[in-house]
């Protein structure tokens, strides 16, 4: 075991992939000389050279499209987008090309591209850098959407994603890059097709992912102090969703609260609630609740930003309301 951070874990994953496979290269805004806007790729330019760590013009549509083309041509590109807000400029490439080409070519063409981007709020970066749009991407058939929330997943999801013959989007919560902890020296690839139970409990199921996982775990600890054992599920993969793990937990606890930093309306949280209704209605002992971000552009002011996001207190209160 060694001490590391989420940022270092992602970097280690990229480095290992580039060392192991000459087809892998990294491309994005400021990933080379500047080392990445979140310093994830610091040092990689020196190690691998400008051919494999490529700074791009400020055109998301162009470099994501280039990544898709390279993937189609047999490369294994890792494309970094600064934040998911900016990814909307590349939405056409992602949705109309990356997600569709396998289908439209009758299975003849694969797009083994991996697109990484930062998501989420909490660092006073204001509305144009702070939104959580992974739920939108989870709407799109043809791609996979991952949300690593732990050091293990930050280290292990990338290699598995690169193995995937289809486009994989990885949403790294900006608030997690400094997350520090112990990681096994031999940590490596992890599966990307299932959710994980991060904490076992029997009174209520808390379903969450990404940056909200740690708040949810803290809320669960607080609830345990009140005698309420909450089960915490980390979705890990937002598309396709692992229904089985969610339903197994709901069948055990009979209550569910979804914690999602996305907005409530038409959200991933809404989708999970709907699936619980479809598959486990008769197991429920209380209406499923959601803790989501306030439906406003994420504010810049610190106290307002705090108020707009799901917080431990809100999660605890939602669980208490479930229990009557």
């Amino acid at each position, binding site marked *: 075991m060694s001490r590391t951070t989420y940022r270092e874990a992602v970097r280690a994953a990229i480095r290992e992939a580039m060392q192991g496979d000459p087809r892998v290269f990294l491309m994005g805004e400021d990933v080379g000389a500047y080392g990445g806007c979140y310093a994830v790729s610091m040092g990689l330019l020196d190690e691998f050279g400008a051919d494999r760590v490529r700074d791009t013009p400020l055109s998301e549509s162009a470099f994501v499209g280039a990544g898709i083309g390279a993937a189609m041509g047999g490369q294994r590109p890792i494309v970094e987008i600064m934040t998911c807000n900016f990814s909307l400029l590349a939405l056409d490439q992602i949705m109309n090309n990356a997600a569709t080409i396998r289908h439209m070519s009758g299975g003849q063409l694969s797009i083994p591209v991996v697109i990484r981007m930062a998501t989420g709020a909490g660092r006073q970066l204001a509305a144009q850098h702070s939104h959580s749009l992974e739920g939108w991407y989870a709407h799109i058939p043809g791609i996979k959407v991952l949300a690593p929330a732990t050091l293990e997943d930050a280290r292990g999801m990338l290699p598995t994603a690169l193995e995937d013959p289809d486009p994989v989007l990885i949403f790294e919560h900006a608030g997690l890059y400094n997350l520090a902890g112990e990681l096994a020296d031999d940590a490596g690839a992890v599966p990307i097709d299932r959710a994980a139970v991060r904490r076992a409990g029997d009174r209520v199921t808390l379903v969450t992912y990404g940056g909200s996982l740690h708040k949810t775990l803290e809320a669960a600890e607080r609830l345990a102090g009140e005698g309420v054992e909450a089960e915490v599920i980390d979705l890990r993969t937002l598309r396709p969703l692992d229904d089985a793990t969610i339903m197994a937990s709901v069948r055990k606890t*009979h209550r569910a609260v979804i914690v999602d930093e996305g907005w409530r309306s038409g959200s991933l949280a809404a989708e999970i609630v709907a699936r619980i209704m479809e598959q486990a*209605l*008769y*197991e*429920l*002992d*209380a*209406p499923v609740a959601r803790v989501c971000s306030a439906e406003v552009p994420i504010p810049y002011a610190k106290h307002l930003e705090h108020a707009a996001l799901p917080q431990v207190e809100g999660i605890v209160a939602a669980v208490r*309301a*479930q*229990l*009557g």
Partner: protein
Amino acid sequence: MASRIDDRGIEYRVRRVLLWQLSGSEAQAQRFHEEADALGFDLRRGPDPLPAGQREDLAPWASSRWRRGRLAEAPRRRPRARASGRPRSAGKWRDLVGLAARFGGSWSRPGRAIARQSRAGADALAHTLRLGGPPGRAKLLPMAQLTMPSLGADMESGVLVEWMVAPGDEVRRGQVVAVVETDKGAIDVEIFQDGVIEELLVEPDTEVPVGAPLARLRTSGDEAEASEPATSPERAEATPAASESTAAETSGPENGGAETAAHVPSEAAERAKVSPRARKLASELGVSLRGLAGTGPQGSITADDVQRAAKARPSAEPSSMRAAIGASMSRSKREIPHYYLRHTFDLEPALRWLEARNAEVSVSERVLPVALLVHAVARALREFPELCGWWRDEAFVPSPRIHVGLAVSLRDGGLVAPALHHADQGTLTELFAGIRDLTKRARANQLRSSEFSDAAITITSLGDQGVESLYGVIVPPQVAIVGFGSIVVRPWVVDGRIEARRVITMTLSADHRVSDGHRSGRFLRRVEQILQEPGA
């Protein structure tokens, strides 16, 4: 009937409703209704079947008058106070139909004029008019209703537990369509008309008063009978309750237009909050959700509450049966002037005949003496119609068929007296099979609704473990009950000599409003006579 229409808005409204009803499909009408509901009856915004010219006419009243509650001033609008559990959803559609019907005297002329503008509407209108004469309340729809049957004189309501049919299903007379939970247990409810289920009006686990509609039925022969309730016409109790409930239903907005807007919230307020898991668990455990205190969010009933109730139950259940028996018997003793006859006679010839018969036939065809007794009583009743029927509305209604209620004591206390249909017909073997089947199902809570309501007289027999005689209390609205004591061996004079013979004591408790002791005595004699020659 309120033919006086002083509010032009209402008239339009009624015509609109009828037009929808007549010119469109069921689905259209339903959509219309939901829309009107959601919009607080602002009809201007709905898909409009009227030509543009008339649409303008609607505008002035549509949003104002209806909402302001002018309808509350219309005659016969006061709703009857009623049980809180009445299913409001059932009324949604019928509010409109009932409203239309109330103004039935005057809608036809303008209605026809409007309907002429729509080919389908005209056809439908003509079809409706063919149903007979001026459009009356129930004739408006070639529809019948399945109502909550009265499964005992003292039943006021029942809980619909399960539907055995779905909308669109074809049903035949006598088919079991639903299960209703009463004080007497779960009863299968039969339908009494052929047709197609149009709409289920009541959700499972809803308590429904006797006579309230449960489902609408599209009948194949949409003649006059379409207006009759689909439940048995023999059910006198159901009829008044049904019409009262219809009156309450059709009275619609008691506070004017606000009612419809308040419709949903008030329904939500009345309906107990029960979590889906609690509901499922309650039905698995057979726990009644009524009156259960909820400890979940917003006072909802949770699975824990149901489990607590299930644990507390054993003492509660028999007492509800006991209460039902008590209510029925109290009413009987309060209202029915009983008189009692008793007759002891020699059963030896009948028993010897039976023993000889049983020795000759296969085991499956052997019968117990009780079958002989029931058979004899049933056949004797053919000659004494005044003992077989019901006291209803201050008059005796003889039963055209001899359906005999058999008192069956239940293993966990209490008793029921389901009807053995046509007890005077068929062979002894068949009769005995019927008795066995009925007893078994009574104890397994699998009786059918007709078996609860059809009995026209009751027979109660103590079997071989009892005492010499019993005097029964008449089960209202029946007018007589026959009691048989145990068969006992007694010294008996036969042909001038004393012999040990097996004798039985038969009693009759009868309603003096209907019959007299003189003729009823001959009834007892007739039973004895039949039993002297059992093979005949």
